[in-house]
């Protein structure tokens, strides 16, 4: 019994020496930049988002993919738009950088993120392409009308 106790306490001491308590207690908090244009509140409480963000994103993913529902609140792009912002040097880093908002925690927790194998890992609002469907639709109407005139002759 005492032998067993001794062994356990030895193991515990060993563990404590291996991982200084500081290292266990301190979570490297990622820098959360002031979100642009959306106000500073996240879409849910911080605690809720820390634990369950993946469920929100997964649910939204299937809704968007299969039903074409494109509300922004729980979309991955909304997360990225707010949380991935230029650093002090003015660079917007990619998801493989430890400064990236998602990667900061995921690296710490050793959970691999697959999202960015396909999805944009940085906001793209600056390169958004504007479409001008209305003007083009009107142009098309004129062309078709001209074609009809040709038919009538």
């Amino acid at each position, binding site marked *: 019994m005492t032998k067993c106790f001794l062994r356990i306490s030895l193991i515990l001491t060993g563990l404590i020496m291996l991982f200084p308590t500081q290292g266990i207690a301190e979570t490297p908090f990622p820098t959360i930049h002031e979100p642009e244009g959306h106000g500073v509140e996240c879409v849910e409480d911080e605690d809720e988002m820390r634990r369950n963000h993946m469920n929100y994103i997964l649910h939204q993913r299937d809704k968007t993919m299969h039903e074409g529902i494109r509300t922004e609140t729980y979309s991955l792009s909304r997360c990225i738009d707010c949380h991935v912002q230029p650093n002090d040097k003015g660079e917007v880093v990619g998801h493989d950088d430890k400064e990236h908002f998602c990667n900061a925690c995921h690296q710490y927790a050793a959970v691999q993120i697959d999202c960015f194998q396909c999805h944009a890992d940085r906001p793209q609002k600056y390169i958004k392409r504007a479409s001008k469907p209305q003007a083009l639709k009107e142009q098309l*109407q004129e062309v*078709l009308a001209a074609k009809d005139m040709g038919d009538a002759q």
Partner: protein
Amino acid sequence: MSDQINDSRRNFLSKAAIAGSITIAPGVFLHQTAQAKSDDQAVSSNTRWGMLIDTDKCSKGCTDCVDACNNEHSLTGFDRPTTDAQYIRKVSLVEKQTGHEISLPMMCQHCETAPCVDVCPTGASFKREDGLALVDKHICIGCRYCMMACPYKARSFVHEEIKNQTLSAPRGKGTVESCTMCVHRIDKDGIPACVEACTEENHNAMIFGDLNDPNSTISQELKKHGGKQIRADLRLNTGVRYQGL
């Protein structure tokens, strides 16, 4: 239930569109105004998106639609033309007897009875309610059965790691992809990038719209002048139709 709501909403809106469009040109309807879908509304089978391509207006050397699509989806190549992804390509048809040559853009034909969906072992290839044939890349295992099954060679496999994707066109290594009819645009009441480019450059060879709406430009045009399916013998009831073949 939701279909009923959609129906009445559509009827109401299309009446509004009729009233609005009379001043533009009598008998011509800007269908897309009638179809406007809010972001939280699911797509429904009331709509079937389609495209009509007039090959007489499509010139041989022109690649405006292809360029626009590549740009829209950030389809950067790796200088390997046989395997680089393409959603749309230009195809030339030459009639042997006369030497008459037709040039046309070829992309996913959004078949109603889609062979790609039939063969997909995972359910990644699917038909959306509004007629689009899409790949859910979250599920796709990259087996490429769908590529083999597609009679139009419409699909590509992503062989390499991709970086700098655009926000609206997620794409990555190990999955199959093809023309999405620019689903990200049409869900926001826009028109496909290829159609936009073709019209913007004043070729006007492509019309996009709702085949289920008898008043839409595309349905009216199909009714008046017809439009053929490529490989109609396969009876896939394609969403993309061609004139001048």
